[in-house]
């Protein structure tokens, strides 16, 4: 299970977009940036770092993922960019054209889970910024 999980995270990390979000179709950069899956990836990576299943080098992936997801949460608490429920189709065009909806509730839980897990990550690690990027180091119990 862990091996599959690590391979999936490694692959997902490689296709994170420049905003921190992931695309509706992972390897199609002209597909829109989707919030709920981004939140799930963020949660999964932060959880893995927190539990020691992933190297701390993955922490900035979750960090940037969260920062991007958080921007999708409007002031009124509604979340933008969540794809509506989707079936399995045979063509990419279907997925390109699935709409997003503020009432797509399946995306709200992942956002809450991602935020909570990133909070745990911030508590578990000391973060050093050097050469313009972030380095997470596990805190030593004092």
């Amino acid at each position, binding site marked *: 299970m862990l091996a599959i999980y690590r391979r999936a995270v490694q692959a997902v990390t490689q296709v994170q977009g420049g905003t921190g979000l992931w695309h509706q179709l992972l390897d199609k950069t002209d597909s829109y940036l989707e919030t709920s899956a981004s939140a799930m990836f963020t949660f999964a990576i932060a959880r893995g770092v927190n539990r020691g299943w992933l190297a701390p080098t993955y922490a900035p992936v979750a*960090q940037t993922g969260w920062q991007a997801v*958080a921007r999708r*949460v409007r002031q009124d608490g509604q979340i933008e960019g969540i794809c509506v429920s989707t079936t399995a189709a045979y063509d990419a065009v279907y997925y390109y054209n699935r709409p997003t909806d503020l009432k797509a509730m399946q995306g709200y839980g992942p*956002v809450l889970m991602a935020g909570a897990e990133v909070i745990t990550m911030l508590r578990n690690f000391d973060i050093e910024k050097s050469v*313009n990027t972030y380095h997470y180091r596990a805190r030593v119990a004092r």
Partner: protein
Amino acid sequence: MRLERFGQLTTFGMAALVVAAVVAGSTAQQQATKPVAPAASIEKTGRADPSFAQPSLAPGVDYTVPAEADIKLVLDRVRDHFVTNTPYRIIDTLTVQQCSRSTGVRCRR
């Protein structure tokens, strides 16, 4: 055809798989978390960081460490949205009838 169909799994589907793996793994390994003081405040830099010699970040990209308080504010906004927008009913568990202003008194036991 099955392979092609599988190949078209959306990002959401992939994410759901990863989350399922994490949740399944979580049951096997429970974390003993000790409350630790939050990280020392890290300077919020992002686009305004003068030390950024690389091409600047695109508009809307926040390359900073989030503060725990900021994350909580976001989560609170979502929670408040649910609290304000979720219709609720008070049900009498014995009669399974909805309490109303007129039946409210009778619902008290």
